[in-house]
């Protein structure tokens, strides 16, 4: 990507997001990409006066990552979407649909993952 990309960790993503908000950035959205059998990339896209900037969080599929919805309320919808599609959990979501935003309750696999981590494996990871 031609824009600036900052790498963050699960420990720093919320503070970094708060920093973006203080600088006047608008949250555009989050994008999730499956990297391999175990990991995902979550990209946080921000805009200020038409300039884009991204945060990149590489996270294991079987561990929850912190939600940024306490900083940017608008993120709750896309974080719920990612939970549905990729199975990764967001901790501290202000409105958690528990993977039923798009999916039915009985669906437990992740439709956008080529290689999904089952709920049992996730529980072990936590």
């Amino acid at each position, binding site marked *: 990507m031609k*824009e600036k990309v900052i790498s963050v960790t699960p420990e720093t993503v919320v503070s970094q997001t708060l920093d973006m908000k203080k600088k006047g950035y*608008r949250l555009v*959205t989050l*994008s999730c*990409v499956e990297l391999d059998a175990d990991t995902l990339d979550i990209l946080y896209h921000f805009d200020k006066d038409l300039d884009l900037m991204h945060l990149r969080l590489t996270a294991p599929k079987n561990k929850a990552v912190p939600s940024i919805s306490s900083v940017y309320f608008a993120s709750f919808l896309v974080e719920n979407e990612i939970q549905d599609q990729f199975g990764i959990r967001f901790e501290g979501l202000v409105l958690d649909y528990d993977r039923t935003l*798009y999916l039915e309750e009985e669906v437990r696999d992740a439709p*956008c993952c080529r290689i999904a981590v089952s709920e049992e494996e996730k529980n072990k990871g936590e």
Partner: protein
Amino acid sequence: MARTIIPFGPQHPVFPEPLHLKLVLEDEIVKEVVPALGFVHRGLERLVEIRDFHQMIQICERVCGICSTVHAQCYCQGIEELMGVEVPDRAKFLRVIWGEISRIQSHLLWLGLFADAFGFESLFMQCWRIRERIMDINEATGGNRVIVSVNVIGGVRRDLDPDMTRWTLTQLDLVEKEVRQLEKVLLDDYTVRKRTVGKGVLTRDQALELGAAGPTLRGSGVAQDMRQLGYAAYGELSYEPVTAGDGDAYSRNRVRFLETYQAVELVREAISKLPSGEINVKVKGKPEGEVVTRVEQPRGEVMYYIKGNGSKNLDRLRIRTPTFANIPPLLSMLPGMELADVPVITLSIDPCISCTER
């Protein structure tokens, strides 16, 4: 006062597409709103696994029929950036022409639906009658009334000859004349103002914090529009975003109405400056790398994230549509409003569930 929960939608006369809002009321006043989606989700993004990157243009065009041209344009623009393709100037201007025609037809469609939401049936029919001229332009220039499949990677697949541009301009003159006849009603009529002024207010700060997009953002006084990026040929055209400052349903209505005139002007200017030359270039190779690209749909900023791996199938295509961005702001507009105002306020963000549930 006891609280009542009213399920609003997914099937409701005011919604053209299924959206569900769980409204928590005290008496007739909305206190809380929880949205529910997923009634028509199609999982189109995953089709990158089985369709090659050229075929994905047709998929992107079907994310939403109303803004299909702009979706395809955004996708092609992203792939062109990944592959370092330089689009011919004529194609850039043609993309603006079809993009703005799509904006006029979308805004006229919405103005009609909005009028219908507050019970102004004759206004609804007038808006849609005028819109038919735009559908005729689509059919004559692109071969289809709704999905005008003109974008390809490297340019456009159709050209406009001088006879067609002259005829298009004549039709647009008629559209502008007929839209002007509606201006007094849409912007000044007592009933329209009574149902829209002060309803669903979204302040400038709320709009920015909640990530609003398009006329919903500009209706709150923020002069931001992706066309300011100068993509396609917008950098060579005179363009300033239309804004309105009150942040209510009336302001959002005003922005879309005035953008209809602006779109007509942009088509005229693009046709007057239309350069000669090729309309597309041959594209070789496969896309590799990551790109984020944005354009302005009729409903606002649409963002495509594309990741290519050097093969014919992309690794990931992520589409963030403007209605998806405008749902959190909607949740802020509704509390404090009367139940009877919910349809008008919800319609004022121009919700496109087809886009949202791509």
